[in-house]
């Protein structure tokens, strides 16, 4: 990523956040990336008005907002938004996801959910990922948005040792112990008597 050149100067990006300082953080980072056309909205309702008036190339919206929140805004965009905007990349930025909102977050149709505090590196990486445009969209009765199932491609190239504690390295190496016999394997799955 470090050597690639950014060509975002012609992109129009909509940033939505009810907290003006948080909105300025995102806008400043985007301007540093070369984005010249940044549209700001202080609520989901204001964001709806913006996309009804104008085509944008990328949307970054806060998740928690009074009234129409980020999840509902993206859901509306995908299902009822202007035709030209329904597949527009949309990133949801959230400080915290309530347990009751996890399913809404998964099903709203956003391209990514990005955790706050936002760092420039993560934001640039996510923009590059959505711009690759290699993710299939799914449209059915219950969902409209990027495919939520990812093909397993191993740990990312930047993190060959894995990014989670339980990720396996690419090279697992030789077995530390001899292979189990068929009898030992059968015993593992042998039906056991349950004592009640």
């Amino acid at each position, binding site marked *: 990523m*470090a050597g690639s050149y950014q060509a975002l100067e012609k992109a129009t990006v909509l940033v939505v956040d009810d907290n003006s300082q948080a909105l300025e953080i995102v806008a400043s980072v985007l301007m540093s990336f070369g984005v010249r056309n940044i549209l700001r909205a202080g609520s989901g309702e204001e964001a709806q008005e913006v996309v009804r008036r104008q085509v944008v190339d990328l949307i970054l919206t806060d998740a928690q907002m009074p009234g129409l929140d980020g999840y509902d805004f993206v859901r509306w965009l995908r299902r009822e938004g202007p035709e030209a905007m329904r597949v527009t990349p949309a990133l949801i930025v959230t400080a915290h996801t309530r347990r009751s909102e996890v399913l809404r977050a998964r099903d709203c149709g956003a391209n990514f959910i990005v955790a*706050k505090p936002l760092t420039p590196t993560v934001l640039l990486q996510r923009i590059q990922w959505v711009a690759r445009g290699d993710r299939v969209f799914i449209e059915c009765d219950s969902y409209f948005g990027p495919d939520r199932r990812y093909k397993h491609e191993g740990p990312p190239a930047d993190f060959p040792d894995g990014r989670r504690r339980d990720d396996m390295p690419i090279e697992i190496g030789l077995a530390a112990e001899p292979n189990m016999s068929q009898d030992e394997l059968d015993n593992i799955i042998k039906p056991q008597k349950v004592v009640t």
Partner: protein
Amino acid sequence: MSVVRRFKPKLALTEMMKKTGDISAREALRRAGEALHDLEEGCLGGVDQALEELESQLKAAQPDIERMYTLSSDIVGLCGGLSAEGLDVAARSLCDYLDRVGEGEPFDGRIGAVHVASLRLLHRSDAPSKARAEILDGLAKVVARHRAA
């Protein structure tokens, strides 16, 4: 039977990013770091205000849990413009606690107070990483004990 349509949308952003731009990613990230530095004073002030309001909520007879949740999540967001290691972790822990309260767990002002005290210790502080880790560790232990009780 439900019909599922799969398609790969053509994005204007994809076409833009294929072209060579004016600045390298390295330069973009350097500029972003500078831009965030310029916002630091405003973000520090934003956290000050949020902490003051959290403290007055804790003194109220009936704290507004929803408002406290908004304030603590605002602090997490403002950390994007700060270099206050661990402040976001403590604020997110408060969000977790208030989320559980919103789902029916009784509110315990002492847990709210220990979070705000930790946030105060981490905010506008020159404490080294080790001291910050100890503050967060202490907070996590208090929260875990409270949950186990």
